């Protein structure tokens, strides 16, 4: 019914040479002749619709310019930068430890994993290894944060498509995780839980008990979300083969995280390049088949269960020992540059730090997953309807604090 350009086109000679790739993905922005000369507004059946920064369905301040023919989307252009706070410029004027809290403000839905990425990057620069007990605590908190971020995604995504009830279920359960964060490090959202070299605080006495209670509390709740949505006729209708993207296009566009895994590419940094001794825990990586919105939903639901498995193994095996490695009070890493990336809930979150031997990083580059994933929006939405644009923005699970930095 909707003539959609199939995304993995083959060139005439069948080889997907690089010449095939670019025109396989028409240049993303220049096709939108926004300055359409003097075409009177309503006469041409094309319509420039502005899903502006304050639109209820764009998660945060993202402005999408849609070029519509009736209901069908001809092309989109994302205008971002409304939340740009110049984090990388600030980093060049702060010492390593002072910059730690800024990192939580970038992807405010998954602050703990931002902190983990930054601390591990600086530890790699200092060539220091956090003690095992600290690493276990870090793994528990990061996986709980992944679960909370996925729950937040599910609530808002279902709300965009029209189902109001899941939002309240997911937020009720997310509350339990935030309580554990609050007891451990005093903050619920921007937690600043870790320090360079390990963890700041010893785990409070009831920590294992709380986490174990949560492990018993969570699985039936996830089943509740599944019963609400997975076999819901209208949910299937609204998400099946909407915003389809193939594995090859994902890799070409640098899309990572659940979106990449839903398109059939079995790649997860926790398994590919293990960090924070993830290699000690066994868990699978859920993979989708045809890369549509429904597969991304299934992949994230499976990831929630995997995170619980990891937390369970980590809580039972917390080793004794110090929680802070020997790190000088004032961190002055040697001259050099390193790149370190972790598997954040949205995708590959990377830190590229160039240090010139002083206490302040010479250049700190953050590779945000949402910023790079958003480029695929135009390809996935071309030929779809306006309601699908809303659904696809939802499946990306983008956070504008991370896109704009």
């Amino acid at each position, binding site marked *: *019914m909707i003539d959609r350009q199939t995304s993995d086109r083959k060139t005439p000679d069948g080889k997907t040479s690089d010449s095939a790739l670019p025109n396989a993905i028409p240049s993303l922005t220049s096709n939108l002749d926004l300055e359409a000369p003097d075409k009177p507004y309503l006469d041409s059946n094309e319509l420039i619709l502005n899903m502006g920064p304050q639109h*209820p*369905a764009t998660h945060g301040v993202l402005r999408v310019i849609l070029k519509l023919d009736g*209901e069908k989307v001809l092309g989109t252009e994302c205008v971002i930068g409304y939340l740009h706070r110049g984090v990388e410029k600030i980093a060049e004027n702060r010492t390593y430890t002072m910059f730690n809290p800024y990192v939580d403000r970038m992807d405010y839905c998954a602050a703990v994993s931002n902190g983990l990425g930054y601390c591990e990057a600086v530890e790699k620069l200092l060539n220091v290894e956090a003690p095992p007990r600290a690493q276990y605590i870090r793994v528990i908190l990061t996986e709980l944060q992944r679960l909370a971020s996925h729950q937040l995604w599910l609530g808002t995504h*279902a*709300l*965009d*498509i*029209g*189902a*109001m*009830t899941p*939002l*309240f*279920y997911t937020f*009720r359960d997310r509350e339990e995780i935030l309580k554990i964060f609050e007891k451990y490090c005093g903050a619920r959202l921007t937690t600043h839980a870790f320090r360079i070299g390990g963890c700041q605080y010893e785990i409070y006495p009831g920590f294992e008990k709380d986490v174990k209670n949560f492990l018993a509390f969570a699985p039936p709740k996830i089943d509740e979300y599944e019963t*609400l949505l997975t076999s*819901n006729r*209208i*949910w299937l*209708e*609204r998400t099946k083969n909407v915003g389809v993207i193939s594995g090859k296009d994902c890799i070409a566009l640098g899309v990572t995280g659940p979106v990449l895994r839903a398109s059939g590419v079995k790649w997860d940094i926790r398994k590919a390049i293990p960090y924070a001794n993830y290699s000690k825990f066994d868990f699978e990586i859920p993979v989708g088949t045809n890369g549509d919105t429904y597969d991304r939903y299934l992949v994230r639901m499976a990831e929630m269960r995997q995170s619980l498995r990891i937390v369970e193994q980590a809580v039972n095996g917390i080793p004794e020992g110090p929680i802070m490695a020997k790190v000088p009070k004032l961190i002055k890493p040697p001259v050099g540059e390193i790149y370190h990336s972790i598997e954040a809930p949205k995708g590959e979150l990377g830190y590229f730090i160039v240090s010139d031997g002083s206490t302040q990083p010479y250049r700190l580059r953050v590779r945000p997953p949402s910023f790079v994933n958003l480029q695929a929006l135009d390809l996935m939405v071309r030929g779809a*309807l*306006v*309601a*699908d644009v*809303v659904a696809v923005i939802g499946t990306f699970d983008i956070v504008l604090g991370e896109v704009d930095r």
Partner: protein
Amino acid sequence: MLQEFMSYLGSNLPPGSAGNQLWALIYVFVIFAGVAVIVLCMNWIERKALAHFQIRLGPMRVGPHGLLQPFADALKLMLKEDIIPDEADAVVFWVAPVIGLLAAFTVYIVIPFGPSQAVTDMNIGILFMLGVSSLGVLGIVTAGWASNSHYPLIGALRSSAQMVSYEVAMGMAILSAIMMTSMNAAGTGTLSMIGIVEAQQQQGIWFLFKFFPLGFIAFVIFAIAMVAETNRSPFDLAEAESELTAGFHTEYSGLRWSLFMLAEYAAMIAVSSIAVTLWLGGWMHPFPNLLHGPAWEFIFSLFPGLTFGALAAITFIGAARMPSHSFFRIQRAGLAVFAALIGLVALLLLVIAVAGRANDTSIAARFREGIDYVYWFMLKVAVFMYLFIWYRATWPRYRFDQLMKVGWKVMLPISLGVLILTAIVGVLLP
């Protein structure tokens, strides 16, 4: 004057067809007041039920358990400023909600709450209802046009296209139900609403169960089309917040906007009462063929009293469980008074039920019958209302093209099939 007043009470004809304008007028006012009260209660129940679906409490602050919330809303809407966009077409902008309201309310003169409890017994009852409900589209279209801005126009066009296309499926389903009425002895069906229910009474079976699968399928088709007709939950594309801001009534505010809400709820009640009349045997108590005879009559006549008694008990428990902090004193007292009120009504109903049974021709007997009829009718409509709310809590929203696909490619063929099958089965079976 008094003679004419008393003369009507004896006859068992609805006032309109008995040519008694005075009583017809009184009935009209009673029904409109009743619908307004039901809409207020619906507003409260919808917010509370939706809240409890979503594990939250819903309005608790205005009055005990938010009972005064609807009145507060109504007052707020009346006092709120009524903005008219400047280039908007003032006349049409004012007329649109009035059309919507007219279309929604004129349907009530034909709805049979009881054999003689309808305003009038038009002999083209259902036809009249279909005609007036199609007028509702006009209200929406003019509202979208009058607000003279981009989103309402799209919203209005979308929802009118949706209503027009689901009216077709609805019409077919109603046709198959009417065909069933003509299977009685006289061989000629009837369009009049009271006639339909009487046909079900004579055949001693609800049309829901008649020719088993057919009646049920037609009922399901009507139930779905009815949700689409009133722009409610899975089909509420007109007010799809995520795409168009609020559909055709974006530019409305204050009292005018509340007129639209009133029209929507009134349309919901009207459409579900059509369903009740056609398929669930209007004012008949359940299982007419199995449980009849004076003993069962008496038991069924106790039901109204018992339900109100149960309601009173629940409110009393609610009042008792309220924390005894001084702040809650007024609220506890308020709730207790409310509970006492409902208890009183329950008592009254029970007394009438008992008195009415004694001798059949007395005023009490007529009252008891009247109350029974209206009670059963309203109970079935209440079940439909609860379904509307339940849909709203669970279903996500249809995309516009899927909505049209379901309307034309799924509902219409099935309803046509049911229509033809009912005809064939009707002719073959005696």
